[in-house]
């Protein structure tokens, strides 16, 4: 950086202090630059994000509670929402626990395969969600690598809830790990050593010393997982089989409403789902803000 500023000096060897008239012009130009940047940012996010969101929310409330009730009374609607909420909650809890273990292992231990583990955790960020679903069908589906074994033992994964859960766990895996990891990095090992020297067991040390520092990060990661899982479509659509009342999730249900030309009902359910996940993301932002980066 120093070199580049140096280059600028060589190109422009005039005195650093500009004349009074051009100073005023510079201030005006800076203000203009700030205003134009601000307008571009507001226009971009306003047109691309705020306006379409408003369209759904206005349409969703447009029919009033009657439209929402009608949409929820449709066959399978209630079950679809409950299934999505239940599976998303399960996903959040499992990932909060095991994701924290993975983060702990990645930060604290040095072992063969640590780099590979770290890379594997990031794979769900890169792999298309639909491909996630296809991969699970390829692995657990009928006439696949291990699917036959599970089906022979009366345990169906694909076209059943375990498959959906696996897909949701896959998609949300990095969220908890990558939220908890930086917090663990910053923890002062001296606190834990003090607890151990004073006679606390490994588990008590973790629970009483480490966990309080991690709590908001774990909760934030869990909430993000929940918000992501409740809206997931791509990973679920192929492997769930979309059976009414059984494996039909809320996003797939909304998709079906749109295909059936019921945009009002779709908007009503969408507003409900969106309100839930947006609140969660806002809470998460609160929890993670103020945490030193």
């Amino acid at each position, binding site marked *: *950086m120093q070199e580049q*500023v140096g*280059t*600028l*000096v060589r190109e*422009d060897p005039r005195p*650093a202090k500009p004349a009074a008239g051009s100073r005023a012009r510079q201030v005006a130009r800076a203000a203009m630059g700030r205003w134009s*940047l*601000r307008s*571009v*940012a507001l226009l971009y*996010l*306003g047109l691309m*994000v*705020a*306006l*379409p*969101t408003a*369209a*759904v929310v206005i349409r969703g409330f447009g029919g009033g509670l009657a439209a929402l009730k009608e949409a929820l009374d449709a066959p399978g609607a209630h079950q679809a929402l409950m299934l999505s909420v239940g599976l998303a909650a399960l996903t959040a809890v499992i990932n909060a626990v095991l994701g924290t*273990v993975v983060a702990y292992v990645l930060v604290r231990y040095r072992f063969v395969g640590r780099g590979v583990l770290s890379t*594997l*955790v*990031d*794979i769900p*960020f890169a*792999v*298309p*969600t639909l*491909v996630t679903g*296809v*991969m*699970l069908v*390829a*692995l*657990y589906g009928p006439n*696949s*690598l291990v699917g036959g074994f599970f089906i022979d033992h009366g345990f169906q994964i694909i076209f059943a809830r375990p498959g959906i859960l696996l897909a949701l766990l*896959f998609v949300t*895996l990095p969220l908890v790990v990558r939220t908890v990891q930086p917090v663990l990095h910053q923890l002062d090992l001296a606190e834990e050593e003090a607890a*151990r*020297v004073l*006679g606390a067991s*490994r588990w008590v040390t973790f629970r009483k010393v480490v966990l309080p520092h991690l709590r908001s990060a774990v909760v934030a990661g869990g909430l993000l997982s929940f918000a992501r899982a409740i*809206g*997931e*479509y*791509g990973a679920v659509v*192929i492997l769930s089989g979309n059976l009414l009342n059984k494996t039909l999730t809320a996003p797939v249900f*909304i*998709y079906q409403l*749109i295909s059936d030309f019921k*945009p009002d009902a779709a908007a009503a359910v*969408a507003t409900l*789902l969106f309100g839930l*996940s947006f609140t*969660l*993301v*806002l809470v998460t932002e609160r929890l993670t803000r103020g945490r030193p*980066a």
Partner: protein
Amino acid sequence: MSTQGELRPARLSAPTRKRLVHGGLIAVALVYVGTLVLAPLVGITWAATRAGWHTWSATFADPTARHAYVLTGVITLVTVVVTAILGVVVALVLSRDLFPGRGLLSAVADLPIAISPVIVGLMAVLLFGTGGWFESWFSARGIRILFAVPSIAIVTLFICIPFVIREVTPILQELGTEEEQAAKTLGATSLQTFFRVTLPNIRWGLLYGIALSTARAIGEVGAVVVVSGLIAGQTETATLFILRAFDQFHDETGYVVALTLAMVSIVLLAGIEIFKHREEKELSR
């Protein structure tokens, strides 16, 4: 540690227990991530390989498959260029410009993360579909948005908006404006300052954000399936091609295309890892 051992004799010696706990936790992490992530990757590779050479050659000879790849490429390119340029503008405003409503702008920038892709598709239907807010304006000019390529680009853009903004904003905040002010004092114009001082400082974070949005744009399906109209060879992206293959019970073709997308994403991941590493190094300078 040794005093504690004397005070409370344990069944196992302390080092042994320590090793057991370490080993156990590492095993849990490896088994969890292994079954969750690695096993499905092996599954798809096995399935696509078993599909045989004839499926591979037939898939790549299929004009609708080729068109799907090209469409995905074009949509991704448009998305990345727009979200990168305008994302940096938003990040500059969020980190430098303290105007009232900045918090709201930041919340709006995060919105796409909270919205299910299917709902993003619904938004496009409500805006550009029959009776939508903008439908009459565009149809009067003979421009087709819904069930055509423009709406696919719009929904993909919507979903990828947060990535660059979320990566670049914290870097700009950390950076401060000292170097930029120095450059300005030395007579550099705003553009010179941006390209010679600001951009080199944010490049790794920017590339990381771009890699994330590329991955997401290639893989987007939930929003696209709603708006595309699903016309093979016209409005069908690579992910929609996979969806159709499975709908028509051409599972093997689906496996082949899915594996190619997975391979592209693994290459992207390599980029993501490198950029993230560089970014972390830069931040901890």
